[in-house]
């Protein structure tokens, strides 16, 4: 029994070791590179949450990415609008002169 177990371990070990070379020899197109965020190096809790989300739920991460980009864009747009209004420039009218 112990002998069969050893042989099985050996076969599985060999398959595991040969797997990359077998995949390589298969000649098929390589699948997309999977990137994993290393959360062990992040101390900031917000960064940690997003890095963790990136690893575990990419759809929710994508939604957050779009929503946060849009929100930050809007917030910066409003802030810059507030600042620009105070420059004294007329920012509501302009003449269209082509030439």
């Amino acid at each position, binding site marked *: 029994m112990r002998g069969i177990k050893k042989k099985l371990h050996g076969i599985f070990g060999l398959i595991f070791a040969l797997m990359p070379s077998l995949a390589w020899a298969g000649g098929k197109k390589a699948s997309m590179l999977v990137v994993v965020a290393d959360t062990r190096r992040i101390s900031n809790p917000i960064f940690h949450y997003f890095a963790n989300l990136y690893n575990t739920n990419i759809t929710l991460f994508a939604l957050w*990415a*779009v929503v946060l980009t849009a929100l930050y864009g809007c917030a*910066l747009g409003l802030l810059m609008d507030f600042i620009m209004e105070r420059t004294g420039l007329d920012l509501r009218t302009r003449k269209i002169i082509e030439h």
Partner: protein
Amino acid sequence: MDWLYIYMPIAGFKIFWPGLVLIGFSVGVIGGFFGMGGAWMVTPGLNILGFPMAFAIGTDIAHIAGKSMIATFRHGKFGNVDYKLGFVMLVGTMIGIECGARIVMWLERIGQVGRVVRWVYVVFLFLIALMVFVDYAKAVRKKKRGIVEGEKGAEGITWYKTLHRIKIPPMVHFKTAGFTCSAWLPIMVSYATGVLAGFLGIGGGLLRMPALVYFVGCPTHIAVGTDLFEVMISGLYGAFTYSLKGRIELVAVFIMLTGAAIGAQIGTVATKYSKGYGIRVAFGSAVVCCMISIILKQLKYNLPAAILILGAITTISLYIMITMFRGAAAELREKKARMATAHSS
């Protein structure tokens, strides 16, 4: 000097954050002035800072979406965005991008994608630059001869006039842009530019802005604002798809957006002090730089290509900033003088 570097939590490396702010700022200036995303400038810039290529494109697209939002906000207040035209064109753009992407997949299957895409891009950039400069030369000749047509003054290329004669219903009036045409014209133009954008893997601002001017008949300023509105929507969609593929670094997006917020104000306000043809010629020069850099990359001269792109970004940004600050200073002086006269009388 460790404080000048910030850790990117997803890509897992440290980056020089003032460099990101500077890239965001410059592309904000140029994008706000020309009405384009500027991916051709951001991606090499990020690469130079040491950003992995896998993350550069997704990060770039998300930043472009946010930046275009800020610039559209400002252009909208000037009345430079024709939202109706933007929504009509969105239909053609989306279908076009999908068709373009399918052509790329077909080329990929026959193993020709890389070379064909790059050379088609070069040919189109050449044609755009040629169109812009021929138009300018023609307009200058007409102006010298005193030929002025309609409200827009001396114009070089007027293909849109011929296209406006096509009266296939439904006819739509675009109030902000100031013309009436068949709805099929902007749809077909946006479809064509969408196919090219999808095929070339770019946002499309580089193609759509001149298409809006020469084929749809938008005044240059409205073309810039409306195009930015389109870039904003396609950019948000692009940000979502690239995030799903895990190719985005949100921290970098936010840092770049902070610089872009200031840059976009300068670029957008500068359009107020520029004539339409001034914008067109500067745009043509940017297209030429983009074209040469792609040819250099194709010939494996990567360093000269990067130098050319960075040089072009610096020169064009400086030109736009000078235009904006000069114009703003003149406007404030004039305002002050008016107020002084009102006080004295």
